[in-house]
């Protein structure tokens, strides 16, 4: 049963905006429990790929199946059920600016209409604590928060419905190195603790190296290569060479190898 091993299956995906082809006949699988990173140059269609997986774009041709359910052509009830099984962290957080932090997290739970208000309160507080936000911030409005806090609260909201799959769009963009570091740690912890599958779009090499089980490189309208970091780095495609073997890429890779070596020794 492939459906059990593959949480997302993309078959023969074409995305076209007018005459402009973004994706040309792409096949891609996301395995259960892995952290998959999508990388590629600006305009290579990473974010569009993410939007395809979320059902926010309609494929020109081909099919996207998540949890074995086709995103297009399934009935509304199945899709609603499916949407409760994933969480999304948008690049800018996309918190509802009209609601307080608490209400932002409570909203998806209230939408279920079966959870009591007391239980919602407890669950919201657990989630806030999990992402390291103190309870005194719960009544604040998103406009009064810093970028780092918005990211963490948005992550907490993405996790509100106990999803099995979460999507992260540039999770560390706009955070300072220290915050990025702790955000990466947070995602690692949650991944371990909640047994999540993570699909991530990122530009940040450090995040990529630290988190990814597998990396998919989008380039020239297709998936150039998908595999573990070492397999991808070994590829000789010019974009990949530039991306990973440039000054910044080498530094990030060396750092992670050093850490791995130390860990292997101890």
């Amino acid at each position: 049963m492939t459906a059990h091993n593959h949480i997302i299956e993309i078959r023969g995906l074409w995305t076209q905006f007018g005459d402009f082809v973004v994706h040309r006949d792409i096949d891609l699988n996301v395995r259960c429990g892995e952290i998959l990173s999508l990388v590629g140059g600006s305009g290579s269609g990473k974010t569009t790929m993410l939007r395809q997986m979320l059902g926010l774009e309609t494929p020109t041709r081909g099919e996207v199946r998540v949890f074995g359910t086709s995103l297009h052509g399934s009935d509304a009830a199945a899709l609603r059920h499916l949407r409760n099984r994933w969480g999304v962290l948008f690049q800018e957080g996309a918190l509802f600016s009209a609601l307080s932090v608490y209400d932002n997290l409570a909203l998806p739970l209230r939408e279920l209409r079966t959870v009591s208000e007391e239980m919602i309160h407890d669950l919201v507080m657990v989630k806030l604590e999990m992402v390291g936000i103190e309870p005194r911030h719960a009544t604040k409005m998103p406009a009064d928060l810093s970028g780092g806090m918005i990211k963490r609260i948005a992550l907490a909201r993405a996790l509100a419905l106990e999803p099995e799959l979460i999507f992260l769009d540039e999770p560390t963009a706009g955070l300072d190195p220290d915050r990025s570091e702790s955000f990466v740690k947070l995602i690692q912890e949650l991944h371990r603790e909640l047994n999540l599958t993570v699909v991530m779009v990122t530009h940040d090499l450090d995040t990529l190296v630290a988190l990814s089980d597998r990396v998919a490189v989008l380039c020239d309208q297709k998936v150039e290569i998908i595999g573990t970091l070492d397999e991808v780095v070994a590829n000789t495609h010019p974009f990949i060479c530039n991306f990973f073997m440039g000054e910044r890429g080498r530094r990030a890779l060396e750092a992670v190898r050093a850490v791995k070596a130390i860990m292997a020794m101890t």
Partner: protein
Amino acid sequence: MGDRCVLAGAWNLRSLERRLAEFERELARIAADPACGWDLRRVEVIDHAGAMLLWRAWGRKRVARLELKPEQAQLFERMLPAPPALPPARGFDPFFLPVFIGGKVLRVYDHLAHMLLVLGQSVIELAGLVRHPRGIPWRELSANVYRTGAQALGITALVGFLIGVVLSYLSAQQLKLFGADAFIVNILGVSVVRELGPVLAAILIAGRSGSAITASLGVMRVTQELDAMAVMGISQSLRLTLPKMLALAISMPLVVLWTDAVALLGGMVAARLELGIGYHHFLSNLPDAVPIANLWLGLGKGAVFGVMIALVACHFGLRIEPNTESLGIGTTNSVVTAITVVILVDAVFAIMFKDIGIS
């Protein structure tokens, strides 16, 4: 040895969702016996919601006899003995009423001061432009005239025509009673040219262009375009507010003229159908019935209304904060205020010019 409660299967939100209340009751009943042992080792999946459900049933503490898998233990470590309360909402304030009213008064003052500031900056820019006419923002000006004037012709024509028809029919009914049919020209002429044309056009433009101006400035605030302009040293009043005010001062009288014409046309058609007054008769009597001063007054009002609408719209647009709620409130306030201001200014005009144009 007490009883033992063995849990199995999936204890996650997805499976529990539908029967949460039922489970809550059942667990509370079992947990009422403190000696009861709990065995979670056969639970396949459990998440925060499932753990929280048990935790609450246990009275927010670990029960004495609890058997867990190691990964489940980690989950229960997150559970807190007491839920942290939200910061308390503010209680009753004895000074609520004076503070509320005072706040409102100060807000009005604040709005007026900012409006004056926007107006003043635009006047200064205008004075600068008189000295250096090469800096006149022609592109912005013509774009705004097109958007607020040319694109509004359809809706003002439709509304003007219908109002003309309605007014003419209703007046005709009354005039027939007195046999004063010929006065339809006076009634329609004076009311449309002096009053209805400018006010109708102003209300439509306030709803149409006022809201658009506020929203576009608000979005520029949200997307930091206003900040980008500021750091490039591009004057907001020169590029944004002044062109809008000038454009509305130019396009409003033209729209008023157009609305007048179409409303009179509507009235004329209705007068012919209802009273049998011919077009030629209507048109040739119009100049005698309506002194030309009324037209100038109407057009002048149009220009003033235009500037007021632009001023109010820019004022609210520039004060929008970078969030979606503020954008909605700002746009609503802008339109409501603009229409109120138009009617207020119209009343002032009516008093100031009460001796002019009506014989």
